[in-house]
């Protein structure tokens, strides 16, 4: 291994470590916010936390001080119920004060139950009704192409969400228009509200479906920051085809009793559960 390669690897390892710490902070925010609000969706927020962290703190080109920068990368949280994780990433990025996070879902807060672009800076699209954010991302990518900009558009989809028919209308149009600057993440946590995806409405074979719709498909462990970064690098080399990164995840990741639990899709932890969750997430005591 050359010296340059070695330095590069060491730097990357450090970056990944930092990002993993950041993800832990994001998860703590998520639990705090939802506990404070008394309602919200912890499961899907925690499963997408590593993806959002890698995007906002390493991959995406964005500037909290320059909201309307035309060249900025865009992100559409199509599974809008994971808003707490997005809000935490935005606050930690500097879009608004971290102290504001605990106003989630409260009357008068900019942190609506589902992301609203007219309430909070940094939200590229209002979402909450599943299936629609993805089409909006197609539109943003079409606009970028029209304006000859080279920004990337990221979209985060739930695996239950892709049961919506409009997802496949969007999928068809993205490959028809060769939207290679579109990079979607499928949060493949295998759960929706009424149970396991394969029990409620079988979506398998997922990879083959996207391939059949003309997409470049990459499969990764959605909790490995390294794999997330590498997958996006690979996606950026695809020419003429939209990209979907199937991120295998665990719903509720990071909190033992929420992991793989359908119960915590849309339920706030009670006081006792909150204490346990925070203890687990603080681990070595990153945050006081």
């Amino acid at each position, binding site marked *: 291994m050359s010296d340059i390669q070695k330095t590069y690897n060491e730097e990357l390892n450090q970056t990944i470590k930092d990002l993993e710490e950041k993800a832990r902070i994001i998860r703590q925010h998520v639990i705090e916010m939802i506990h404070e609000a008394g309602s919200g969706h912890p499961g899907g927020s925690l499963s997408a936390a590593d993806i959002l962290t890698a995007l906002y703190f390493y991959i995406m080109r964005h500037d909290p001080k320059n909201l309307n920068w035309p060249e900025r990368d865009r992100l559409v949280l199509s599974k809008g119920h994971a808003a707490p994780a997005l809000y935490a990433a935005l606050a930690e990025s500097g879009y608004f004060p971290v102290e504001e996070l605990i106003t989630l*879902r409260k009357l008068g807060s900019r942190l609506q139950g*589902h992301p609203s672009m007219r309430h909070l800076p940094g939200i590229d699209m*209002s979402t*909450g*009704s599943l299936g629609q954010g993805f089409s909006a991302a197609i539109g943003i990518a079409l606009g970028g192409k029209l304006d000859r900009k080279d920004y990337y558009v990221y979209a985060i989809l739930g695996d239950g969400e892709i*049961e919506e028919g409009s997802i496949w209308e969007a999928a068809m149009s993205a490959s028809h228009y060769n939207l290679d600057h579109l990079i979607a993440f499928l949060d493949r946590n295998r759960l929706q509200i*009424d149970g396991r995806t394969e029990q409620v409405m079988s979506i398998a074979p997922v990879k083959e479906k996207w391939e059949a719709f003309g997409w470049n498909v990459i499969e990764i462990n959605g909790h490995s920051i390294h794999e997330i970064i590498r997958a996006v690098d690979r996606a950026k080399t695809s020419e003429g085809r939209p990209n979907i990164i199937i991120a295998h995840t665990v719903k509720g990741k990071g909190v033992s009793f929420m992991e793989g639990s359908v119960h915590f899709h849309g339920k706030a932890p009670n006081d006792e559960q909150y204490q346990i969750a925070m203890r687990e997430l603080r681990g070595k005591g990153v945050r006081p």
Partner: protein
Amino acid sequence: MKIMASAREVFGNVLMELGRKDHSIVALNADLSSSTKTSIFAKEFPERFFNMGIAEQNMMAAAAGLATTGKKVFASTFAVFATGRVYDQIRQSIAYPRLNVKIVATHGGITVGGDGASHQMLEDIALMRVLPNMTIIIPADAVETDRVIRYIVEHEGPSYIRLPRTKSPVLFSDDYTFEPGKGHVISEGDDVTIMAIGLLVDRAIDAAKLLKNKGISAGVVNMSCVKPIDRELIIECAGKTGAIVTAEEHSIIGGLGEAVASVLVQNAPCIQEMVAIPDVFGESGESEELMTKYGLTVEDIARKAERALERKAVMC
């Protein structure tokens, strides 16, 4: 102390009970069976329950197809997805062919709370009202929900029932009967008539008490059947009190208020005030906070009633 009960729970239980006797009843859902309580039916009759996944449009058109095979079809999800998301499926495949699909939506209105505007359906009555063949019923409490589900199962044709997320006060006793197409007079009054639906009926009753203390005699009508609406009763009330207040957890556009106004203006013009959500989207907050912010409290109803009386006085 008011006794609180969940209309959703009642819906789930009654549907299951009716399903025992009537094997033509089938239930469809879109990944919200626990929230809509159709999970109760699903547990008992798994073979007559179809979870269509997060795919409401498919669910509604499939409901239409099932109805053509002689089934009594119940299709349920949150009100916002049960109407707006699937408006064209309802229009083309359920209302136009006049099929026997009963849309029972939960989580209607602003009391959805924390989820915010994306999930607070404030225009479902407007959307359903404009459809020919559609019956619309908004029960006022758990008891009426029971009666309405029992009625609607035998009713042949498209219907829309809206239930709230929250528990609500029990208003009616066991001998309560629901009469389709009829407003239900809860109390008579000489000065003003308050016509309300859903969660606003309880508040209308309290508002009438408030007004009584001020020497104002207010009648209260539960207008749960929004379509077909009880024209005779509206005309009768206009004649009797000459002042009507409508109250609903819905946009001021296209809901009960405008339905009543339309009857009045064409038959018996009379003073009307509307308690409804102004022409804006909702927001996150506690149910009760939102009801207060958007003007749906007992005091709001009483204030509008007084305003109607002032206007009436000027007219005379």
